[in-house]
């Protein structure tokens, strides 16, 4: 376990340094991730002009989106298409170490660039939070980060079967946006859809940390939501193992 952690830390460091030269590209990623919640902020604050919680929610959502962004369809899936995943299979370490390391490095850079801009946006628009709520949102944020990675990783593994992994992952992003709280805060969904969205894993991937940070979900409700998120992590981990084993059996590479 310690060895795997050390290898992951090394990979994070290496990828962090690799990405340090691409700050302009990182800014592009930040803009692309932030734009959805930002548009939501403007739309819903037009609908509820006097409700400050809407602004606070969407500003928190921008932060969550930046800190949980996952691009395994660009990083890992490309190695399947190019056949270079063979190199990783020959190394004496789990293949997933490198994608995790790269994922964390990208998220660190996006947080470094995006979080100050998000804070400035929040200050400019008058969002406000209570410290206890923010602290309570940290475990939910960690849960969202793990869930989002696992979800994207499972979808990225479809590269073993199809050339259209980007379409598959984009479809997943549409689900996260609609049912995760970006298109509309879950509390504003009509009755049957609200219950469905809460039960599915997408809310825990995106909207839950923002809901907790704004105090919309607190106390026992937050604990239940977090437990549900942890259960989804177990489900997705098991699913990732099954899909990986199945995919690797299908994988063939040609060449030296």
């Amino acid at each position, binding site marked *: 376990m310690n060895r795997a952690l050390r290898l992951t830390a090394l990979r994070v460091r290496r990828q962090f340094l690799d990405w340090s030269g691409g700050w302009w590209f990182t800014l592009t990623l930040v803009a692309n991730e932030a*734009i959805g919640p930002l548009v939501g902020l403007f739309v819903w604050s037009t609908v509820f002009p006097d409700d400050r919680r809407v602004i606070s929610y969407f500003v928190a959502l921008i932060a969550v989106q930046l800190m949980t962004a996952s691009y395994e369809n660009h990083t890992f899936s490309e190695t399947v298409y190019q056949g270079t995943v063979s190199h990783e299979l020959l190394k004496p370490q789990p293949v997933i170490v490198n994608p995790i390391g790269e994922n964390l490095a990208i998220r660190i850079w996006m947080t470094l660039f995006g979080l100050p801009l998000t804070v400035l946006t929040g200050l400019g628009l008058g969002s406000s939070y209570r410290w206890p709520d923010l602290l309570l949102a940290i475990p939910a944020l960690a849960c969202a980060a793990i869930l989002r990675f696992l979800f994207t990783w499972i979808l990225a593994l479809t590269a073993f079967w199809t050339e259209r992994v980007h*379409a598959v992952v984009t479809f997943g992003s*549409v689900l996260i946006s609609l049912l995760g709280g970006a298109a509309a805060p879950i509390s504003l969904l009509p009755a049957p859809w609200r219950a469905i969205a809460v039960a599915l894993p997408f809310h825990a991937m995106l909207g839950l940390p923002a809901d907790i940070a704004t105090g919309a979900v607190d106390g026992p409700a937050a604990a239940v939501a977090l437990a549900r998120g942890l259960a989804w992590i177990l489900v997705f981990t098991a699913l990732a193992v099954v899909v990986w084993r199945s995919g690797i059996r299908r994988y063939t590479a040609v060449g030296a």
Partner: protein
Amino acid sequence: MPKLLRLFAAGFSMSLRRTVTFRTNLFFDVALAVAGVLSALVTIVLVFTRTEHLAGWTKPEMFVLAGTFQLLTGLKAAFIDPNLAWFPGRGIREGTLDTYLLQPAPSLFLASFATAAPLALVQALLGLGVVGLGISIHGHPPGPLGIAAWLVLLVVGAAITWAPRLELDVFYGATWQLGRYPVDVYRRPLRLLLTYLIPLALIATLPAGALLREPDPAVMLASTAAGVGATLLATGVWRLGLRRYTGATS
């Protein structure tokens, strides 16, 4: 001009044949286009469960606006993105622009329209369907003047879409998404920016407004001038760039 049209048709035909070769991919692309349009409609329906108007637009009017946005997004994805997305990296830095410069056709035309992503037209067609749906719910069919103004503004929107793609690639994708709602939902500094400096209002807000309400001659004139200006600017920048370009291949 007929020569350029023939070239365009030949490029499109090649792209279409390449696309339909891989039928499983075709399924994914069509499914994604449908999901994108449905998600836009669901979001609008969600918003209108809480309000009757969004920045002065009713639900059917928002459908028309969303359809117009999807229509132009589909056209952009079909004709503009496949050509210009790779351009700064491969065209200039790796020197593949040389290939176009050596061919007996205008280089700007080749760089902009040599290839296409025909399946993205599914999104444009779905967008057109959503415009039709919005108009039918709205209950007031637009007159010939409104339809003509809508078409003119779509062409202007396409020109505005094409011109900055040549110059401002970096934040293009993100900025484009701001066009999916009426510019009036954005706060004042951003609204002014999106109306005058980066005229994203031309993508959906102004064409949909012209189709649904009486087209304002002043807006039509200013929009057409902006479209012509953007095209001239892009052409000028292209020529200046070519003078500076030295090629990167041997």
